[in-house]
């Protein structure tokens, strides 16, 4: 559905996207994952036609964005990171304007607006001025405009940022629903969001793709080892020594008064750790398993080895 080939973007002399290529199949939900300024937004802006690539090309369905930009744009629904709203318009008139410029059939505009208002749960605010809506509702209006013309492709840039947790859950549910009919590319820097929504992940850092895989593979990569953090009252050297002797523990490190323990994902050494503590008369102040953060994955991917082909 989307084919990105050798895409490169310079802002002046600064290289923002560096020769990236990927495909997104019809009906897939793909996550673009990466830290801030990794090139996610720039990539999305090039797919949607807002920015022209410095080099490379993009095909949306059969249309390439260089020669058939209008046809390509017609297929795309786009929610930018800063939700683009005409704050002086009402929700309905805003959606009406967008339906018209995206060539929704005149006779169906009215019913389509009602439909998306229902989908995005905006019934109460259909005739409110957008400028007076709260942030979460503005986000929903943003989603509503993105789907008004039933696009085959949805591009969502950080769709859950800056809204409250309940709204986040609703937005995710909505994206899942939309993903049944459309191809979705969404960007995020929240790791759990990716595993919740996406079937495949493309990790971008400094304008390059550093990993691209199905979510199952990525999560095994993430949980290549499980990590547990301990806070113990006791002599650090001895504690480290005794802990590393426990069967199933791969590595023990001591930093900032905490012990970080790594072990294979199928092992659970917590009972044994407790036992060791009691035997030696040390006081265990806290014990928690920690998820690998995005930063850890980046470190892992960029330092340990070349990303797997």
């Amino acid at each position, binding site marked *: 559905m989307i084919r990105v080939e050798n895409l490169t973007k310079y802002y002046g002399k600064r290289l923002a996207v560096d020769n990236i290529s990927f495909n997104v199949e019809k009906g897939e939900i793909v996550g673009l994952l990466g830290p801030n300024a990794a090139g996610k937004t720039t990539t999305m802006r090039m797919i949607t036609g807002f920015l022209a690539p410095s080099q490379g090309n993009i095909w949306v369905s059969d249309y390439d964005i260089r020669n058939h930009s209008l046809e390509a744009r017609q297929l795309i629904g786009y929610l930018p990171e800063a*939700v683009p709203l005409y704050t002086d318009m009402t929700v309905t008139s805003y959606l009406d304007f967008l339906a018209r410029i995206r060539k929704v059939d005149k006779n169906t505009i009215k019913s389509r607006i009602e439909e998306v208002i229902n989908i995005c749960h905006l019934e109460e605010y259909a005739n409110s001025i957008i400028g007076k809506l709260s942030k979460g509702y503005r986000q929903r209006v943003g989603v509503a405009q993105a789907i008004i013309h039933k696009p085959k492709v949805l591009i969502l840039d950080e769709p859950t940022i800056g809204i409250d947790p309940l709204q986040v859950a609703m937005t995710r549910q909505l994206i899942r629903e939309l993903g049944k009919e459309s191809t979705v590319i969404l960007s995020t820097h929240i790791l759990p969001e990716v595993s919740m929504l996406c079937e495949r992940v493309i990790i971008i850092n400094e304008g390059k793709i550093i990993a691209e895989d199905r979510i199952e593979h990525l999560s095994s990569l993430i949980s290549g080892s499980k990590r547990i953090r301990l806070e113990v009252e006791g002599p650090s050297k001895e504690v480290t020594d005794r802990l590393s002797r426990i069967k199933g523990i791969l590595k023990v490190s001591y930093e900032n008064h905490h012990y970080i323990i790594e072990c294979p994902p199928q092992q659970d050494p917590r009972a044994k750790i407790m036992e060791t503590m009691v035997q030696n008369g040390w006081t265990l102040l806290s014990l928690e398993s920690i998820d690998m953060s995005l930063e850890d994955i980046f470190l892992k991917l960029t330092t340990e080895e070349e990303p797997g082909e």
Partner: protein
Amino acid sequence: MKNITTIAIKEFKSYLSSPMAYVVSGIFLALTGFFFSISSATYFETSIRGFLGIGSILLLLLAAVLTMRLLAEERKLGTLELLLTAPLRDSEIILGKFFGSLGILAAMLVLTFYYPILLLIFGDPDIGPIITGYIGLLLLGCTALAVGLFASSLTSNQIVAAVVAGGILGALWFAGSAAGLLPTALAEIFNYLSLSTHFPDFMTGIIDTRSIIYYLSITALFLFLATRSLENSRWN
């Protein structure tokens, strides 16, 4: 064409829902009305020359104010991203915005029709110069709006857009005055390029095709530049 109409209507409506258009029209009507009544009362003229004289200059200033938000605000709010990712040509966006603002300007001119109507009721004015005067104002207005739209396409700051538009329009208006200081060949060019040298004909009832072509070509030039400037934002 449909896209242009859609955008023009949207712009026209959003003018009506903000105070700007009303303030601008109010000032325009108050000042031109004052000069119209002064000239009618002082010179016992049954013409709208007093209105046209001040109206032409005011139109330039007000066009700069009317157009300053057209693209600068979209850039600032991020809604430009909506327009530039919609299946619209850049030229359609520019033309839609141009015609939207032209609608407001035309409405403003229609509101001044009561000057000639008063003359018709209480006197026997020469209709010719009145009609050509309005044609002249409309053409001058088109030019000023195109310049303003171009200025608005350059920045995300509305004030900067208005000042740039005012600067370009001022330079074009006074280019004729600078002609006196220049050698003949250059002076003719400056005279031709000046917005002000083409206007007096319209006030006296003359329709010179050269003047019409002049105003329309300057309008087209700045609409073209605005389109290029919009296109250019995709490359940065």
